[in-house]
């Protein structure tokens, strides 16, 4: 490109991507900003999705910025568009429909998708996801009044949903395992008190391990609930929907072969730069070098992710500031015995 105007590309229109675009526009008013996302919807907070069960089904009520925000801020929002490759040397990226775009700076904020353990993947068609608006509507449609939802794994996203489902008169059974409370690390000693807190909330907790692990998920027989889970010990469990909550895995297929370093996530220095000087990353997709831990760490949750988006944009536009790891990310119990996660503090 012969133009002198810098072209910032942000991959992802989640919390990190949108915060980054906002900061980029503030700090580099004359630049071109392009935000690319697979999503067809403009940006909405995914932690708002449980509202669907309270009867809010119009996606327009979920979006954070009106369409005009993007027009006013001259952020070219390319939705329904998948990046399939990045060439860090040529400073280009390729879209699924074979369009090539040049960038001066690239911020990868492609987040993470729900993780499904290998041994569960064959049951995927029978499981209900919860990452997108459509998923939420489909679950809401599949779950009758007072219906029974079975949550597998039980990460904090799932537990947050469980709170709403109970509130809206549904039954919730949690098939607990090593991912329960993810991304919080809960020691074996502490675990019983948190499980008890879940039970106090009204969740029926079934320890998968005690039943020989999950053996299968199948359709319920005629006249019975829509889904049936069988366990290794021969016992079973029936519900209207079965939803996996096993944490998340970074979305970075398109970065393979790009020339930047990857471990599980995109590896970035404390100033959120990848191993290429023009490529930064922020949000669920990246692992940040953390001196105190002597390793690359993930920092999940919307507050962290938003802060990363802002920091990356600042550093792209001339600053050189380091990521400051959050102080306290632990799970807590309130005085009246309720589970408290810093990830749920968004109201």
């Amino acid at each position: 490109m012969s133009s002198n105007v810098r072209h910032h590309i942000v991959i992802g229109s989640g919390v990190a991507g949108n915060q980054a675009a906002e900061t980029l526009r503030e700090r580099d008013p004359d630049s071109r900003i392009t935000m690319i996302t697979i999503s067809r919807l403009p940006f909405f907070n995914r932690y708002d999705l449980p509202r669907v069960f309270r009867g809010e089904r119009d996606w327009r009520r979920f979006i954070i910025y009106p369409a005009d925000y993007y027009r006013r801020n001259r952020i070219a929002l390319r939705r329904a568009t998948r990046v399939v490759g990045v060439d860090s040397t040529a400073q280009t990226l390729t879209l699924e429909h074979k369009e090539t775009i040049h960038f001066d700076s690239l911020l990868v904020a492609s987040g993470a998708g729900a993780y499904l353990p290998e041994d569960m993947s064959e049951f995927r068609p029978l499981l209900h996801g919860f990452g997108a608006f459509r998923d939420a509507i489909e679950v809401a449609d599949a779950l009758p009044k007072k219906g029974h939802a079975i949550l597998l794994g039980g990460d904090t996203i799932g537990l947050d949903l469980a709170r709403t489902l109970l509130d809206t008169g549904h039954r919730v059974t949690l098939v607990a395992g090593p991912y329960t409370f993810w991304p919080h690390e809960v020691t074996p000693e502490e675990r019983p008190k948190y499980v008890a807190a879940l039970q106090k909330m009204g969740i029926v907790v079934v320890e998968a391990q005690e039943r020989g692990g999950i053996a299968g998920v199948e359709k319920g027989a005629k006249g019975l609930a829509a889904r049936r889970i069988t366990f290794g010990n021969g016992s079973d469990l029936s519900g209207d929907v079965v939803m996996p909550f096993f944490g998340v895995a970074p979305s970075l297929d398109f970065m393979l072969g790009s020339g930047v370093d990857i471990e599980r996530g995109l590896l970035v220095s404390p100033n959120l730069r990848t191993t290429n000087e023009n490529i930064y990353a922020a949000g669920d997709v990246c692992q940040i070098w953390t001196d105190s831990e002597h390793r690359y760490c993930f920092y999940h949750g919307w507050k962290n992710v938003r802060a990363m988006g802002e920091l990356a944009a600042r550093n792209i536009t001339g600053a050189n500031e380091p990521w400051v790891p959050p102080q306290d990310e632990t799970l807590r119990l309130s005085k009246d015995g309720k589970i408290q996660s810093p990830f749920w503090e968004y109201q």
Partner: protein
Amino acid sequence: MSTDIQIAIVGSAGDGTIAAGDILRRAMAEMGYRVISFDLYPAEIRGFGKCIARLRVTDEQAYSLKPRSDVLVSLDDSHAIPHVSEAREWGAVIYESGSVTPLAEGAHISAHIDPGQIPYHVPIRELSEKSTGSARSRNIVVLGYIAGLFRLSIDGFLRALNSKFKGKADIAQKNEAALRAGYEEGARWFRLDDIDFGPPPAKGAGATVEMISGNAAVVRGALDAGIDNFFGYPITPATSIMERLASEMPKRGTRLVQTEDEIAAISATVGAGFAGARTATATSGPGLALMSEMLGLGIIAEVPCVVFVSQRGGPSTGLPTKTEQSDLNIAVYGGHGDAPRIVIAPTNVEGCYRCAGKAFEMAEAYQTPVILLLDLYLSNRYETVPFPAKPPFEADMNSYADTRGGNAAGFKRYALTADNVSPRTVPGQKGGMHIATGLEHNELGRPNDQPDNHAAMSRKRHEKLQLALKHPDFTHTKRFGDEGKVEVGVIAWGSTFGEALEAMILARAEGIRCAAMKVVMIAPFPTEAVAAFMADCGDVLIPEVNYQGQFAGILQAHIPRPVTRLARVPCEPMEVGDILAEIRRLAGRTTEQQAA
């Protein structure tokens, strides 16, 4: 209206854009919806140029297309990209998700979709190839997708498809496979737009609703009025009138002759009219210019005949495939001498039917050539039209002289009567005299150049036409919108009235007191009705698709009052948005006020 959805399909010639639009409108009409549609396509051959099929689907008949579409389909991004902004906020943009070749930045339509529009990226080519073995049915895949996405009955589409490809079983079969593939894909998608097709209107008793083009409606009107003869010479955009009549008239034992040129066509038409037949010709501006001398004969000899004129861009060969309303002056004034004639201009397809039939009645009742003025936009656009069970036309409106036992030599073919219409005879009528002369004549029809006679005959020929303003069951003008005093009144004629009406409706929705009047009869001019309307209007706006403001000129010759002319030659129909902007300006509304 509970259903009001406009779909625009944009592609390149050869993509099947126009065919897709045709099947879509047939399917919608088949389901019972009301449709108005107009296609734009280049004059070039297959493989070049932009094609756009636009249709508006409603539950009450609409008069024009909307300024913005609810759904925009791209069959060719290079042509569709300049039109993306046509899709409204929260409207759908449906496009090919893949690409066969590498693309430069911005060459894919997804780069141009506004944050307020909803993208639907569909593997159109892949679905076509999988279902039919080739990419040629992409247009049909898209139709299936629309049907599936908006939960429309696939049966209506299948029937439309089969009628389109009647007798071509192989093509019909492949297209059915493509349609079903697209339908399944569409039904799978999660809808994010707010486009809702309400139920189609219930079928009314008595009338049958058919989807038909303006020219086809003219033909239907002519046939229902009992046309006996047609003489014509082909010219765009009037040709299809002759083509359709050519296939219909022989079945009814009536005659159509393609003459060697327009002069022969009008000569034969006037001759057949003189002989007592219901007769017509059809042409466009250049042909009307050639016909003007013989029209003069029809006027002075007081011969009933009908001339269908569909206007296109001019002068001369001009812009044969573009619409324009610039033949109004030649229609009203064209010719030598004081040559008054009746000129009527329908404003929609239903009007084409009614006016065509009424033109024959008027020609007979007032013994004069009648020009029915259309334009390419009206000739080629499709609308659903309710046709009455019985044609609403009189079979014969001649006032024949009773010549039984009379003295032929003393028969006054051009008798000066109270209403200025002289009872006529037709050749072969006993006791009648059959004179048709281009010379000025007296009541007996004999040449006469005396000043008193010329004045009396000129007055007769002019005055008798005033009767047409009271022609039974004919609406020469009609007011719409606010009653009483209004800030702005829009007066429009011909095809542009639809856009004027739409703009008026939008202006009222913005709180502007506004009304619109359509003027169907342009000669004789309905001065009284138009003046009464203008008396109610703070400002008068006259939109028309010609450079001079020809209608405004005619109006001001009858009603000397300032008007605002919105006279444009965009080579396309007038845009509703342009008329609306002018209404706002005249009403003194700023952009901020109307946004508020």
